[in-house]
């Protein structure tokens, strides 16, 4: 084999590799999480001050457009549905790949759920790994989340799973994602004009319950402590938060317990779950279902966390070089969603 | 037996086996040259040649010859 053939071969393989890479990104199942992550990678480098991590309530409860308008702070969620707790650490690492966040806001509710279920929930593990760009960190994330070693290759090369979505090539929106970077107008937030009236079903809250602690599972606590040690060792600033949802007594205990563990490592825990009345939360207007806020709820939560961040952290907004027009558009989109939630509110029966 | 005599006898065998009075074989004739000479007829041909010359081919020999010339060489060693 002579030199010419060798280089020809290398270039051929490179072209194939690039085409496969782009195809991988295009055929990944479309949806709000893909749009969110593709939007994340489209943001300019060093333009995001705050990164949220956690499960679906993150996208529903916080509007980066509104937050920016109120405080000048840019933020972006790296959240996915039923996000496995083990992935949080890796998503924090992922964020440092393109951004220099001054604060991580970590939603904690998945720590109160069963760890084994999360480890076997391949669909939601994939929702994290199949939305990351190809990189060494992605491989490490897959190794950490996928216990079955023999199946890992279908995660490394997720085109093996999604190639049957080849119809995406006919969708202009998905074609644009060939590099997994398409700007997301709402900066990853989701809005809803639906609401439920849930105040009648709320349990009686005993004053003692505000101090009540119920331990989470030992396995989950291990994961939490591992995350906290990692953050502390690397001096990573983080704020842990519990977003509002329909109140359950044992959850109360879990949230307080998580808060105490978080505090042990010197980190703050903002409990928006236990006393939602503190920021004017209305169980008859602000929830679209038992676990997620709607646009009204997002308005309240975003303002609440804006307040908390301003009071407890000093974020230097001049460090991030965002495009003003982009964020203005995000805010205006939020306003339109809010108006929609007001004028076209859809009542949903709480069963 | 001379080579010419061998070929004379062979022509008779070929004409008989393939039912064609016009066949004339030479050293270069192969199975491609005669229409019905396929793997089935090959054995019949070999059996007929054996009968005509009073010889017996080994399995290696009957599968080994690529043209009539090679077959004649084998016949010569067996007569």
């Amino acid at each position, binding site marked *: 084999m002579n030199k010419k053939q060798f280089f020809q071969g290398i270039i*051929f393989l490179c072209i194939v590799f690039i*085409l496969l890479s782009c*195809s991988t990104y295009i055929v990944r199942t479309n949806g709000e999480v893909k749009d969110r992550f593709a939007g994340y990678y489209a943001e300019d480098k060093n333009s995001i001050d705050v990164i949220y991590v956690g499960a679906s309530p993150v996208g529903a409860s916080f509007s980066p457009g509104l937050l920016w308008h109120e405080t000048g702070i840019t933020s972006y969620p790296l959240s996915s549905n039923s996000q496995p707790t083990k992935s949080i650490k890796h998503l924090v690492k992922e964020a440092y790949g393109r951004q220099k966040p001054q604060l991580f806001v970590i939603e904690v509710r998945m720590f109160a759920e069963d760890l084994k279920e999360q480890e076997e929930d391949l669909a939601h593990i994939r929702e994290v790994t199949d939305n990351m760009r190809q990189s060494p960190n992605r491989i490490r994330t897959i190794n950490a989340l996928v216990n079955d070693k023999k199946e890992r290759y279908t995660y490394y090369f997720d085109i093996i799973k999604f190639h049957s979505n080849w119809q995406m090539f006919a969708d202009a929106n998905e074609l644009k994602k060939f590099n997994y970077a398409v700007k997301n107008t709402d900066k990853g937030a989701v809005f809803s004009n639906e609401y439920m009236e849930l105040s009648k079903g709320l349990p009686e809250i005993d004053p003692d319950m505000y101090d009540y602690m119920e331990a989470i599972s030992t396995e989950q606590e291990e994961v939490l402590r591992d995350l906290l040690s990692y953050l502390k060792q690397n001096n990573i600033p983080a704020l842990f938060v519990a977003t509002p949802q329909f109140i359950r007594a044992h959850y109360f205990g879990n949230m307080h317990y998580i808060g105490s563990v978080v505090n042990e490592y010197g980190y703050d825990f903002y409990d928006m779950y236990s006393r939602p009345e503190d920021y004017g939360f209305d169980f008859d207007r602000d929830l679209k279902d038992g676990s997620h806020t709607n646009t009204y709820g997002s308005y309240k939560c975003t303002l609440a966390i804006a307040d908390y961040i301003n009071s407890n952290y000093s974020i230097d907004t001049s460090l991030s070089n965002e495009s003003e027009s982009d964020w203005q558009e995000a805010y205006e989109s939020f306003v339109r969603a809010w108006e929609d939630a007001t004028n076209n509110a859809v009542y949903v029966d709480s069963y | 037996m001379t080579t010419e005599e061998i070929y004379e006898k062979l022509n008779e065998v070929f004409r008989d086996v393939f039912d064609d009075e016009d066949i004339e074989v030479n050293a270069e004739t192969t199975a491609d040259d005669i229409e019905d000479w396929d793997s089935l007829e090959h054995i019949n041909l070999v059996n007929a040649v054996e009968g005509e010359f009073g010889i017996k081919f*080994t399995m290696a020999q009957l599968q080994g010859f690529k043209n009539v010339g090679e077959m004649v060489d084998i016949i010569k060693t067996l007569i």
Partner: protein
Amino acid sequence: MTITSFYFLCFICVGALVYYIVPKRCQWMLLLAMSVAYYVLAQSAVAIVYPAVTIITIYLCALGISKTDNKKKKKLLLYIGCIVSVALLILVKYIPRSLFGLSEDVAQSGAFSAFMIIVPIGISFYTFSLLGYLFDVYYEMGEADTNIAHIATFGLLFPNMTSGPIMRYTDIKGTLFEGHKFSYENFTRGCQRILWGFFEKLVLAERFARVANEIFDSYDNYNGLYIILGMCAFTLQLYTDFTGCMDIVIGIAEALGIKMPENFKRPFMSLTIQEFWQRWHITLGTWLKNYLFYPLLRTEFFMKLPKTLKEKVGKKAAKRITTYLAMLILWTVIGTWHGGAWHYIIGVGILQWLFIVLEEMMEPAGDRLVDLLKLKKDGALVRTLGRIKVFILMTVAFAMFRSLTVMDSLKMMGRIFSKEGWKPVICEGLLAGLEWYEWVLMLVALMIFITVQVIADKNEGTTVRALIGKRALPVRWIIWIGLIMWVVLLGFYGPGFSAAEFIYQGF
């Protein structure tokens, strides 16, 4: 570890890399190591005992035959070698496990029972390859090899192990054991052939399988055109599946510089059933001709038979009856090789014999008809009709092969003529197992496949890959990169698709 699986691809990539790094005289040893590794990974360490027993037996018998001059001893050793090998084959393939009173659950059985339940991969193929070697030594058509490692490499050689091609030792030992320097042309041509095999298997065969499975497994729901469609789909499935497997196997060998025998030669271009079987599973046909058919016709019985019959029916008929009888035995064996059930023995056995015999007997009538219609015997029309005839006959035979029983296949085919009409059957948005756009994809892929076959047919001396190789670089790259993307995006593989197991692997 099927040969279209991710891990197998990794296996051959690493293997090929190491192959060209080790000294040339060690390359065949690496093949042996890889073959053993493949067997253990694809099945189990226990299963390798089967081929090991056959290999050792054949090696010793062949060596013994070559060292003695005693004809009786030679025959005895031949018998021993045959009996041991064939007995293992029969034990594994044709005797139901239940006869041993064993539980079907391997996990629950003890070690011995587990051993008895295993069906070693490729037993029919490696047994035949090794027996061929033994016969060659006995008939002095080849030399015995004193190195058992050589025989082991030959017997275990992956990737032939799964479904062939069946190799002939004398033909392959040169290319198998000599060292191979890296050749850019061999390597790329080999890779291209592997890619084509993947296309045939994952893009074509798997799609045809959907349709075939849908129709064959629930033929009560279908009539008329659908039954025909299903049968045609199975024929195409079987063909693309098997030839795809062969292309991958031969392609791997080519990339390593080893020349494997061809197993297919565009069989559906054949004009007669006789010709079909000279172009389909060629190495099996050659093996049977060399080691069964010819020896059979050279036995006393068959050599005397024409003479005995000559008086009663004339010379020509006597010859014919002898040949037909030998063929009947041959075809019964072929049918049985595929499986011990009647639908195998008849479908790809006795029925084929019947087709060939009828074809031969009706040849003069056919010729007269062609003359009567003033058609050209070698003309396009006659040739096309011949090909259609072959396709129809083989589709009927393969339908029997695919069905559970002979009766089942007849019942299914009977529905072609059902009075219930030929209404379309759409179930859950699927027309006979596939969405409408999958049908389009399947037909487009089939068109490409047929085009490639036609081009290959018109350029006998070379290969389509070589023809592409002559084109300008952008054209070549568009073709190969396009084919890669086609297989990756439109192939049926991965989680969510049924496991891609080759049909012939169970044989």
